């Protein structure tokens, strides 16, 4: 038993790597085990691009190509956003439905670590989805953007960090108020507005989640600006807003789970 030897027990600590692995493997197994579901999900995102691209060509003719780079980057970021957000916020709701949420809380890693670990895996999965879609979009449109990993990955991670903060916030609200799936859907569409926010014209918009990261990613991928070519102040704002949203969201989740436990509604749906 874990405490058969008291001294051994004191030294025992749960392997975080083991947990990261099972969370990642679970996501992967479900993607592979239900290929139709995975394909449908991917095709829905690809179809959205198809509608914008081919529909835009039909309506606006060749002028659509002027903004094609922005559209591709925008959809790339939106994919990152909705995968990262939905994996977090919807996940809490589904875990409550399945009766597994309380088991996550009972992990020796602690609920916070469990949620952070799931978030890290979600971010990784969101990148896999977004890059797969990016390749399809560039191949279909023939518009090959600059995808410098040293630039796109750090900017992408920071952008997704603020989305994860929003995800934590809504996961916390789901713990307290339960059936708020319709709000999740609204938030997913709100990301479109945040991604397209005219940050260049109005610097205050840089303080919104996603917006500044989206602006810098557009410049990096569409204009070929490298990470070290951005003004340090621009990067500092991105780091500050991303970290602030991430921690604020996490704090909200922490308070919400505490309140949910006080009200005795943690595992309810």
């Amino acid at each position, binding site marked *: 038993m874990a405490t058969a030897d008291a001294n051994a027990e004191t030294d025992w600590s749960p*392997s975080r790597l083991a947990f990261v692995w099972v969370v990642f493997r679970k996501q992967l197994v479900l993607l592979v085990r239900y290929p139709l579901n995975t394909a449908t999900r991917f095709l829905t995102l690809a179809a959205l691009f198809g509608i914008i691209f081919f529909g835009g060509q039909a309506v606006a003719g060749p002028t659509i190509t002027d903004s094609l780079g922005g559209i591709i980057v925008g959809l790339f970021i939106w994919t990152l956003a909705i995968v990262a957000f939905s994996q977090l916020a919807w996940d809490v709701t589904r875990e409550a439905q399945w009766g*597994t949420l309380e088991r996550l809380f009972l992990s020796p890693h602690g609920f916070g670590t469990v949620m952070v670990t799931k978030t890290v895996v979600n971010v990784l999965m969101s990148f896999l989805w977004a890059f797969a879609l990016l390749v399809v979009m560039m191949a279909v449109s023939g518009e090959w953007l600059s995808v410098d990993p040293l630039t796109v990955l750090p900017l992408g991670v920071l952008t997704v960090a603020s989305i994860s903060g929003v995800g934590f916030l809504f996961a916390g609200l789901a713990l307290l108020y339960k059936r708020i799936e319709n709000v999740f859907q609204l938030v997913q569409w709100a990301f479109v507005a945040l991604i397209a926010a005219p940050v260049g014209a109005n610097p205050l918009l840089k303080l919104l989640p996603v917006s500044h990261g989206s602006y810098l990613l557009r410049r990096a991928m569409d204009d070929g600006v490298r990470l070290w070519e951005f003004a340090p102040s621009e990067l500092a704002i991105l780091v500050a807003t991303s970290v602030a949203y991430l921690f604020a969201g996490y704090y909200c989740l922490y308070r919400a789970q505490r309140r949910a436990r006080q009200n005795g509604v943690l595992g309810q749906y």
Partner: protein
Amino acid sequence: MHQQTAQSKQAQQDDTQPDTASQASEPTGETVISVDGLQKQYGTGEDAVRAVDDISFEIPRGTIVGLLGPNGAGKTSTIKSMLGLVVPDAGTVSICGVDVDGDSARAHSHVGAMLEGDRNVYWRLTVRENLEYFAGLGGERASDVRERHDELLERLGLLDWADTPVNELSKGMKQKVSLASTLARDVDVIFLDEPTLGLDVEASQELHAELRRLAEQDDVTIVLTSHNLDIIEAVSDRVIILNDGSVIADDDTAALVDLFETQSYRFVVEGRPAADLQSRLTTAFDVTCQPDGDQTVIECVDADSETVYALMEQFSDAGLELADVESVEPDLEEVFLRVIDDQRPGGEQ
């Protein structure tokens, strides 16, 4: 007796009898679960519901404790408060010496819990994937627990379904998977809320055997709730009965049954006693009369031989033919009902 003793009329009446229960239930090993002054109230003002009302007890290692109580008695709130899933208003809970509120993660390293029956596993994963997931959630690598999982699946009759997605299994099998996932890693304490719900008789007996094996061989401490009192009686070393959030009885299972084991008799007479006779018998001997086909079953508790003869004389005088008479052994269900009944307004406290 444990910290809170049975508050039954028998307990009060039997003060002069040797307290065999207290000797039998005295913790012999290390205390694994300690609950002290636990309180939980939901809501405020007129809507306030006191779900847990100043509960205290200790459970030694390797003990199986059945938590009983009618619906709304506070069983689930008590278990969830013990696990930290509900934040108590007052009181402390420690598991393996670790304060659950102070260091929940470390306390949880000792604990497995099955709280939602067959629901609390991932139905789209296979049986083995679930076990590996929950072992990983507990911080154990799949490679380290593979052998343990094989043994567990074998014991629970799940080995042939190890690679089957859970959603393809029957309800009873899902329930077993849920239990298996609770035991997927090495724990000292397991909490089982209604573990036999949906299980057939055979599966219930397998579960019963597995729980006894866990307690006796692996020294696992088990806290379980169930509406199936037969399982509680068969499995539990000790029973805690809750009502309105309070502990109203806490004793060894056998001692609790013994406590209520008075000389009870069941008489079966042909026909129906007249109403005035029934009234006389009820007043004088505190009997209950139940029609059963052409016969009437008359039950009398607290009956000594004098009472039995007096009753038989009454039957004879009334011309009632006695078809059968037997002494009645109480089971846990009867004990439970009596304890709960005593707590009701108008019942004997």
